[in-house]
């Protein structure tokens, strides 16, 4: 097997809160020992409910948040060990598209300023007409270059955000719920755009989403996270789930055809507090298949064709 473009090794991030005079120090593990390899040209989806650590994972991969432990390898180079200047250079090869197209663009910048910023911070020359070409790449007319973000629609802003991410021709792009704050009709356009750009530019995506339907449509492989840990990696978007949590997620995603909808067995129980995880499997309290072993021992993610972290997989 050729070397993966991105490789995460036991990537972990803990957050500490409190520790003042009146609040006891508490810590939560937002991302727990995540191992993941992404091959060049692959689209890997990360799904999970709010607070499962998927956005933290996205920022860890780009070292926008410092990991507590673990490694991030980009083409075999460990990003966590890079000094500042080398990290800045490495940032040319990776980029991020953010969830909120309203706050991800500086309100004082024109679109032309936004597109020039990557070249400014990387001290790279920007060709004449580069902005027009970048806008054309994302399906925007050259005339928006003089506009300020507040003059554009949500979909147009997100296209500007994508154009900015593509500015330095990166290999790898983290998409953090790029369609979550857009209208459904616009979502489809943005996904089409991202899909076309991948084919044309040979991009590799890490696609973060809470929308399992979208992820199954768009991704080659799907990572399912629950409370900071990977519980299952679906090797194909249409693979049958093996983890009870993944199954519950998939059942919660209604089919557009009512006759194909099955009865949903809603999950009972609450998500445990991330500050005091149970000793065993984090999902045991809500799992219909949980046994005594699940409540005392934490299942590890197996290394197999279809890895799952469960003692009683389906």
């Amino acid at each position: 097997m050729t070397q993966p473009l991105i490789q995460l090794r036991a990537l972990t991030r803990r957050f500490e809160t409190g520790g003042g005079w009146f609040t006891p120090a508490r810590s939560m593990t937002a991302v727990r020992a995540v191992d993941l390899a992404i091959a060049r040209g692959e689209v890997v989806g990360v799904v999970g409910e709010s607070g499962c650590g998927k956005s933290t994972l996205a920022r860890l991969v780009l070292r926008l948040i410092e990991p507590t432990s673990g490694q991030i390898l980009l083409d075999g180079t460990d990003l966590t060990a890079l000094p500042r200047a080398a990290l800045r250079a490495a940032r040319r090869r990776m980029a991020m598209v953010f969830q909120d197209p309203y706050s991800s663009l500086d309100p004082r910048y024109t679109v032309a300023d936004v597109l020039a910023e990557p070249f400014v911070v990387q001290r790279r020359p920007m060709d004449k007409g580069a902005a027009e070409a970048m806008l054309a790449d994302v399906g925007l007319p050259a005339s928006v270059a003089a506009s300020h973000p507040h003059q554009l629609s949500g979909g147009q802003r997100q296209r500007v955000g994508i154009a900015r991410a593509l500015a330095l021709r990166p290999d790898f792009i983290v998409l953090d719920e790029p369609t979550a704050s857009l209208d459904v009709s616009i979502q489809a356009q943005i996904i089409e755009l991202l899909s076309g750009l991948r084919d044309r530019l040979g991009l590799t995506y890490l696609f973060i989403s809470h929308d399992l339907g979208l992820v199954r449509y768009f991704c080659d492989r799907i990572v399912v996270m629950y409370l900071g840990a990977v519980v299952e990696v679906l090797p194909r978007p249409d693979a049958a789930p093996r983890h009870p949590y993944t199954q519950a997620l998939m059942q919660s995603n209604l089919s557009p055809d009512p006759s194909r909808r099955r009865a949903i067995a809603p999950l009972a129980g609450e998500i445990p507090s991330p500050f005091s995880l149970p000793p065993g499997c984090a999902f045991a309290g809500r799992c219909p298949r949980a046994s005594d072993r699940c409540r005392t021992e934490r299942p590890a993610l197996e290394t197999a064709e279809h890895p799952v972290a469960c003692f009683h997989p389906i």
Partner: protein
Amino acid sequence: MRAVLRAFRRPMGAIAGGWLLAMIFVAVFAAWLTPYDYDIQALKEAYQPPSPAHWLGTDEFGRDLLTRLFHGARTSLSVSSIAIGISVLCGMVLGAAAGWFGGRFDRAVTVVVDLTWSFPEILIALILVAIIGPGTTGTMAAIGVAYLAQFTRLTRAQIMMLKGETFIEAARSLGAGNAHILFRHLLPNALAPVLVSAMLATGDAIILEATLGFFGLGAQPPTPSWGAMMSAGSALVFKAPWIILFPGLAVAITVVAINLFGDALIAELDIRARMRRAA
């Protein structure tokens, strides 16, 4: 800057802005606008009511009041705007540093600033004038320090708020360093509310300057200032009411004009919510 021009298109903005431009004009060209000198005494002409020769009358030494009012505008406006300018500059540096670095430095700055914030400006100014001594320099320093807390707090609040915006994270993801983020994103976005509040504070500073002048702590005679002119007129309210009336009107109208123009600017810049949050 374009917002300033747009503010002039609002009716209130036009009237208020027009008055302020006129005040700046008479302050700059005070020496050439009237045939009289502000400091030559002509005791035979004393206590004259307004007339075609002396539009606003003369004071107790026979000096033309209009001339003194124009020169007073020079003192009042320059002292207050220079004082506020220094205050804004220092406040922005201090507030930006506190908001940017956070931690112990931020806590130290906040404690000191909040301490001065809890006293009325006039009290701080009086204490400082008592230390430095009366005169224009002392007044400027006193006003500058009195308003330092306001600009430090405002800038700090802006920087803290902007630091959490996604576009800062986006810039970081492109490889932007601290200097780029601070000078290309944070400070330009923090500037508009700070400048507008500086403008509004200039109005208060004119009152503060007039107050210090009224107490004889501002510009020293024969240099006219609106406050000192009112102080002289206060003893003569019944004998020659115009001596206190016209400088008083000048202060009042100018301060109201500054506030109205500031309101127009706030509306044009669409930063009302951000101004409220920081104050």
